[in-house]
C-alpha cells in the first residue's frame, strides 16, 4: 500500500513535469548554440553566441538607442493600424448593414485585395519617398483587408432569429445594432483584429528594412553595414517580442469581451 503522502505527491509531480516539458527543447537548443559558438563551430559573423546577443541587448538598451527605436516603430505600427483598421471596420459594418453600399464597393475591394500590398513598395516610395507616410500607408493598407473581411463576415453571420426577435420585441434600429449586431459580429471582428496585428508587424518590418532612417528595422540594417551581427539578432528578437505582446493583449481583450461565450471562458 502506498502511503498517503505518496498519493498526494504524484499529481503534483506530473503537473510540474508537464509544465516544464515544453521548455526542454528551446533550452537544449540555446545550450547547443552557446556551446557551438564557444568551440568555434559557429562563426561570430554568422551567428554570435547567446551571451553576445544578451550583451548587445544590454548595450543598445543603455545607450537609449533601443528604446527610441521601439518607440518610433510602435508608433508607426499602431498609427497605421488605427487608420487601416478603422476604415476596414467602418466599411465592413456599412457593407454588412447596407445592401446598396455592399453592391457598390465590395467587388472593387475584393479585387484590390488580390494585390499583395508589399508589391506596392516601389510605387509607394515614388509617391511618398521614404518618410513616415510611406510606412503608415503600407501598414494601413495591409491591416485594412483582414479587418474589413472579418467585420463584414461577422455582421453577415449574425443570427437571423435574434434579429427577428429584436424586431418582434420592439427594439429600435439603434438598439438592434448595439445589442444584437455588434456583439454578434464581435467574435469574428476579433479574428480580424488578431490577423491584422500580425500583418501590421510584418509590413512594418519590411517597410523599415527597405527604407527608414529610424526604428527597429533601421537599427538592424544599420548594424548590418557595420557587421554587428549581434545587434541584428537583437532587432529580430525585439520584433518577435513586440508581435507576441500585441497578440497577448488582443487575446486578453478577446477573453474579456467574449466572456459570455463558453468557448472563450474556458481558455
Amino acid at each position, binding site marked *: 500500500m502506498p502511503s498517503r503522502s505518496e498519493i498526494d505527491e504524484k499529481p503534483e509531480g506530473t503537473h510540474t513535469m508537464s509544465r516544464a516539458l515544453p521548455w526542454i527543447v528551446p533550452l537544449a537548443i540555446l545550450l547547443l548554440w552557446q556551446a557551438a559558438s564557444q568551440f568555434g563551430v559557429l562563426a561570430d559573423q554568422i551567428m554570435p553566441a547567446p551571451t553576445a546577443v544578451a550583451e548587445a541587448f544590454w548595450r543598445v538598451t543603455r545607450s537609449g538607442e533601443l528604446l527610441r527605436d521601439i518607440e518610433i516603430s510602435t508608433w508607426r505600427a499602431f498609427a497605421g493600424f488605427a487608420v487601416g483598421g478603422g476604415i476596414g471596420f467602418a466599411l465592413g459594418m456599412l457593407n454588412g448593414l447596407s445592401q446598396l453600399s455592399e453592391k457598390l464597393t465590395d467587388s472593387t475591394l475584393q479585387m484590390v485585395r488580390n494585390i499583395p500590398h508589399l508589391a506596392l513598395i516601389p510605387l509607394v516610395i515614388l509617391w511618398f519617398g521614404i518618410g513616415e507616410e510611406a510606412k503608415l500607408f503600407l501598414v494601413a493598407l495591409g491591416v485594412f483587408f483582414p479587418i474589413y473581411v472579418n467585420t463584414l463576415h461577422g455582421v453577415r453571420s449574425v443570427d437571423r*432569429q*435574434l434579429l*427577428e*426577435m*429584436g*424586431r*418582434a*420585441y*420592439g*427594439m*429600435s434600429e439603434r*438598439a438592434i445594432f448595439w*445589442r*444584437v449586431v455588434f*456583439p*454578434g459580429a*464581435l467574435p469574428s471582428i476579433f479574428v480580424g483584429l488578431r490577423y491584422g496585428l500580425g500583418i501590421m508587424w510584418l509590413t512594418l518590418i519590411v517597410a523599415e528594412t527597405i527604407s527608414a532612417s529610424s526604428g527597429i528595422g533601421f537599427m538592424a540594417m544599420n548594424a548590418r553595414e557595420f557587421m554587428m551581427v549581434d545587434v541584428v539578432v537583437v532587432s529580430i528578437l525585439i520584433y518577435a517580442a513586440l508581435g507576441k505582446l500585441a497578440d497577448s493583449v488582443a487575446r486578453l481583450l478577446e477573453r474579456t469581451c*467574449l*466572456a*459570455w*461565450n*463558453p468557448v472563450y471562458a474556458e481558455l
Partner: protein
Amino acid sequence: MNVSILDTTPDTDLRQSSTGSPVRLRGVTKTFGSQTVLHGIDLDIPAGQFVAIVGRSGCGKSTLLRLLAGLDRPTAGTIEIHGLSTGWRDRVRLMFQEPRLLPWQRVAPNVEVGLSHAEAGADRRRQAFEALGQVGLSGREKEWPAILSGGQKQRVALARALVSHPRILAFDEPLGALDALTRIEMQALIEQVWEDKGFTAIVVTHDVSEAVALADRILLLDAGRVAMDVMVDLPRPRRHGDPVAAAIEGQILDRLLGR
C-alpha cells in the same frame, strides 16, 4: 438546480395591470408568391381566452401567428386587436420555439429586452427581477444564458415575454424542443401565469394532447382554412388521461389524419 414552479407567488399589482385583449380577424389572406397560405380567415377570440391552433406542418398555423405578432402583414383582410386595426404591436408578445436569448447578455438584461419600447431606467431592472420571480428563476439574474438548461432558457424567454404585461401572448410551439418532463412543468407554468394575469393566449402546436391539456378552445387549421373549432370545457388543472379530454383528442386526431 430547478426551482419548483409552485414557489412562485404571483404579484397582485401585475394581475390587475395585464388583462387580455379580444382579437378579430376578417378575411385574412396571406400569399407568398403564387402560394396562398391562408384563405380568408374569419375569427373572433374573446379577451382572455386560451386558444390552441393545431394542424399539420405547412397548414399556415405559424404564418397566422406571425401575422398576429405583427411580424408580417396580411395580403388581404384586417386584424383588429382590442378594437384597433393598427398600433397594437406592443400589446402582443411572441414566444418562439427557440428561446432566442442574447448570449452576450446576462439573464436580467435579456428579460429587459421585453421592455425595449419603454424608456430605460432603474425601474426596468426591478420589473425584470419580478418577471424572473414569476417563472421561478429568482437568484439566476446574473447568469449567462449559456449555462442554463433548455427549460430554464425557455423560462427566461417567458419572463421576457411577460415583463411588458402583454394583452396577448402568442406561442409558436414553445415547448417543442423540451424533454417530456420539462414540457409538463412548462405547460403548468404557462397555465399558471395565464390564470394569474388573464392575457389572451394563442398557442400554435402540433401536439394535440398539449392543446387539449391547455386550451379553452382548439382551432384546427387545414390548407389555410379553419377546419374545426372545438371548445374544451374541462375544469383546471387538467389531469393527464382524463376520458373526456381523450375523446376530444381522438376526435381532432381523426380529422387531422383523415380517418
